[in-house]
């Protein structure tokens, strides 16, 4: 096998390797998109689009991604912000379909999107705060502040804010 065949093999193997890594983080990615968009169909679209963009970037980086999980989650979060802006509609997705009144998630869907995402990354995904910041595209201090304030608001459901 020459270099050409090796390169072609690398291309094919690259896709396999990439998909293997994507499938390993698909669950948290989809859940993060659901948390940010409060819409399961759109969350699927966001993850799909983010994956295609990630694949292009992955090729450019030749697979040299040190923390794939955080890197991929940050791309999903970025895509959610983009789609959220593009699909902006009066009131936005209320999340009532996801969390009916009285359910465990009711207070969460009433939080701001950024706060909700920060809580999700920190408490549900158990990411370190610097990775939470990386995923959300903010500073570590800001991510910490979001988590702290969101926690406070959950303790005072009457003051919970609209999304």
């Amino acid at each position, binding site marked *: 096998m*020459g270099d050409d065949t090796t390169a072609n093999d690398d291309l094919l193997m690259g896709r396999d390797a990439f998909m293997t890594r994507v499938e390993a983080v698909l669950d948290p990615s989809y859940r993060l998109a659901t948390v940010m968009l409060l819409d399961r169909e759109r969350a699927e679209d966001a993850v799909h689009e983010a994956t295609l963009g990630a694949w292009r970037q992955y090729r450019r980086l030749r697979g040299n991604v040190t923390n794939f999980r955080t890197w991929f989650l940050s791309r999903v979060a970025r895509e959610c912000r983009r789609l959220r802006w593009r699909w902006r509609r009066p009131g936005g997705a209320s999340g009532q379909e996801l969390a009916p009144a009285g359910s465990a*998630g009711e207070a969460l869907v009433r939080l701001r999107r950024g706060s909700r995402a920060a809580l999700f990354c920190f408490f549900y995904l158990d990411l370190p705060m610097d990775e939470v910041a990386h995923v959300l595209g903010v500073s570590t201090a800001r991510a910490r502040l979001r988590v702290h304030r969101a926690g406070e608001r959950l303790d005072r459901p009457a003051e919970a804010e609209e999304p």
Partner: protein
Amino acid sequence: VSSDRSIHDRVRDGFAAITHAPRPELAQRIRDSIWNRVAPPPQPLLLPLPPPVLIAAVLVLTLLTAAIWEGPAIASGAGAIGSRLPHLPTPGPAAARKHPTTSPSIVATPRPSPSPSPSPSAVPTPTPPATPPAPVPAPVSNLPGYVCAEASGGGTMPSAMTTARVGAQAGFDRFVIQFNGPVPQYALRLQASPTFGTTTLRGSAGLDVVLHNASGAGTYGASQDFLPAFTELREARLLSDSQGTVEWALGLAHASCFHAFVLDGPARLVVDVQD
């Protein structure tokens, strides 16, 4: 601490309630998009085609050199070259003897391309009419060339199919079978009809892919009937899997040439059907 614990549990319960695991269709959708996306050709694999300007420059220089060899009077200056070029006589036998590889061979050299389109030629060269589709060199130089009848290969060790997929690439459509062991013995045969026994696939021609010492029972987890709307590959169906023989049938738009080769890690049989 108890408050933190309480928040932690409440948050986790809340998120568990409003989210759920992704549907299997999402992974399949992503996989299809990634594999069916026309990948840009790997840069190291293709020789860069000289730009037209470079070809023209080589042509001019070659003709100029030939003219100088013919007679120094022809080349009297750069300005005269342009006006003289249309009137340059055909290089005589002497020039042909001195420069056996001059411009016609350079210009008429077809680019190694998987597409069977006729190669453009600035200098008309008499070519015999070719009735059957001429096999075009593979896009990767070390790959086997395209064949238009039969191909075979693989090893003698038994192996199990794990997955298969289809994809559209630039200039060819690809069908890949993946194994959890070495690629077993395979035989491919092109046929003029998409009918395989009692089964008729989409398209107007077919490619029979038979694997010996192979099985997919309990290991194969992908679709058994792909229906891609590619240029050439219209359907790929698992026809049979019994007694150590697996047969795949490909429905093609035309009886196109193909080549098959093996890749490792994981072991795959790759079949490229020329567009």
